[in-house]
């Protein structure tokens, strides 16, 4: 007999489903989550329907604890403010909530990441003469700065997991102290504002975490992939000594929730 809580088998779910479900697991009940557009929205919505009914979501455009009945397409969407506890603006979310210290968990994306969890969403190449421009920082580095834990959701590609990112848009565990440029632990730069940092990176292939020194290691590999597959898609020397087995795949119930309740219109889930 198959119950709703059984795991789906390989082929019964898409890579993006796996990503969303693995990410959702990072949410503890009661967390105050500050999330970006896209996959983070799926993850937080799914978590709220499962293990974290009391998790609360803040979107930078101005909504606190909204309860969208239709999935927002962006954090600026009025859908975010439906049945929200507060609808205000950026001063409220960035300063009145985030800088105030309320945020437990950040859910963010990134184009490139290094082994310290530094993320680039700005340019490819030298910033002063870039080869390619991405969207830019948005709230990514802000949310990541002061959240107690940050989970990055990314695509697994060698060119995205780099020894050094071309531009540190969002601060990991080792960063520069500007304007001098010293390379130090985040704690050194943030002082009393050091609340935490990146705790996980979730991709279409694996889950990565960070050790006591703030170095990324491989935690679990998604079904269908091997440790070697992951290593081949990481551009730096990845610590695989702490691999903790396979990531649990989505359950039938999760897939059901994702496609029928969270994103029935197929906005992020094709």
């Amino acid at each position, binding site marked *: 007999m198959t119950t709703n809580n059984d795991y789906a088998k390989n082929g019964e779910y898409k890579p993006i489903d796996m990503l969303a479900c693995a990410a959702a697991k990072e949410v503890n009940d009661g967390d105050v989550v500050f999330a970006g557009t896209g996959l983070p929205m799926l993850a937080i919505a799914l978590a709220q329907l499962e293990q974290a009914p009391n998790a609360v979501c803040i979107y930078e455009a101005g909504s606190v604890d909204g309860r969208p009945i239709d999935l927002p397409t962006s954090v600026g969407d*009025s859908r975010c403010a439906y049945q929200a506890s507060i609808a205000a603006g950026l001063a409220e979310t960035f300063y009145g909530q985030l800088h105030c210290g309320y945020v437990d968990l950040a859910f963010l994306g990134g184009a490139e990441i290094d082994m310290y969890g530094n993320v680039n969403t700005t340019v490819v190449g030298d910033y002063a003469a870039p080869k390619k421009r991405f969207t830019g920082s948005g709230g990514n580095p802000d949310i990541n700065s002061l959240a107690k834990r940050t989970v990055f959701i990314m695509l697994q590609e060698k060119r995205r997991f780099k020894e050094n990112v071309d531009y540190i848009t969002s601060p990991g565990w080792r960063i520069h102290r500007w304007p001098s440029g010293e390379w130090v632990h985040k704690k050194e730069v943030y002082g009393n504002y050091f609340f935490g940092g990146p705790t996980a990176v979730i991709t279409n292939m694996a889950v990565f975490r960070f050790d006591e020194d703030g170095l990324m290691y491989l935690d679990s590999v998604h079904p269908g992939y091997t440790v070697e597959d992951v290593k081949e898609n990481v551009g730096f020397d990845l610590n695989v000594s702490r691999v903790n087995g396979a990531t649990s795949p989505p359950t039938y119930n999760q897939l059901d929730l994702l496609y029928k309740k969270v994103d029935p219109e197929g906005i992020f889930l094709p």
Partner: protein
Amino acid sequence: MARFEKITLQEAAGLINDGDFLSFSGFTIWRRPMALIYELVRQQKKDLHLFEVNGGTHTEVLAGAGAIKIWESCWVGHELYGKLGEGIARGQVEGSIIVEDYSHAQVVARQLAGAYGLPFFPTALSMGTDILNPKYDMLSKAGLRDGSNPKIPVKKYDVIKEPFFGNGEILMMPAVNPDWALIYASQVGDEGTVRVFSQTYVDAEVVKAADKVIVIAEEMVPDNYLRQEPEKNLAAGYAIDYVVECPWGAHPTGSQFFYDVDADFIRQFYQVSKSKKAFDEWADEWIFGVSGHEEYLDKLGINRLQNLRANSVLGYSTTVKRGTR
């Protein structure tokens, strides 16, 4: 308090000079003063200096038209309907636009300082990022931090030792006070009280920080009505200088409780934004090919617009197709 002046879109755009320093209401693809942006392009404004939170379609229309000289911001794109800000990216890569990057909350810090008349605003947000790398201070590289332009601070940021609690260092961001705030508002009262619906973004701060404020209003309503719930209003009449009544003035961006984002329009725009030539053809059709806002609306047609109409309870369209299912 001088009462605001009611003007036309053409007159509003006519107030803006080449080289002026502009800021905007809204966020990415929401509540952007698009009708006025189109008119700025129609009037062929050049060398504009922009300061904004997450940019969007309006930024890209100006970028495509070659109207931008300096872009100070933190993000540009069209959300789900266009991943990148192609025009800004092209400008930055080619070197035709000076891009000064901040984090989103650093932009907000500058606007809060500007709005409150403070010289700076402290923040711990996004310390340790390359945003603060002195090598990447592009206004400084361009020689524009020499103090000759009072709108450009002599430093991109400062770091000071906090003197009260032994908390170490903290970042300070300078105030920003653009020449103009170009605002799209949901409602403006006959005495100038301004209201926007749903999240307020940084609209209030943008109004306060600017020297002069032009509002394009989805609708004008009795001030008495807005004054029944003064806690919902964004600005008092004396804070604004010019008003244009302009229904659908934010199209193709969304205006909560009036209309949703025109996803198809933006998707199409995103495609043309990838090359100068395609943009120019698009602009010939949608900007120069119409005499103004009314002809633009005619061209869109009632059925397209009706489909975007917000459900009056939910505040967004429940008829527009958004996803693949």
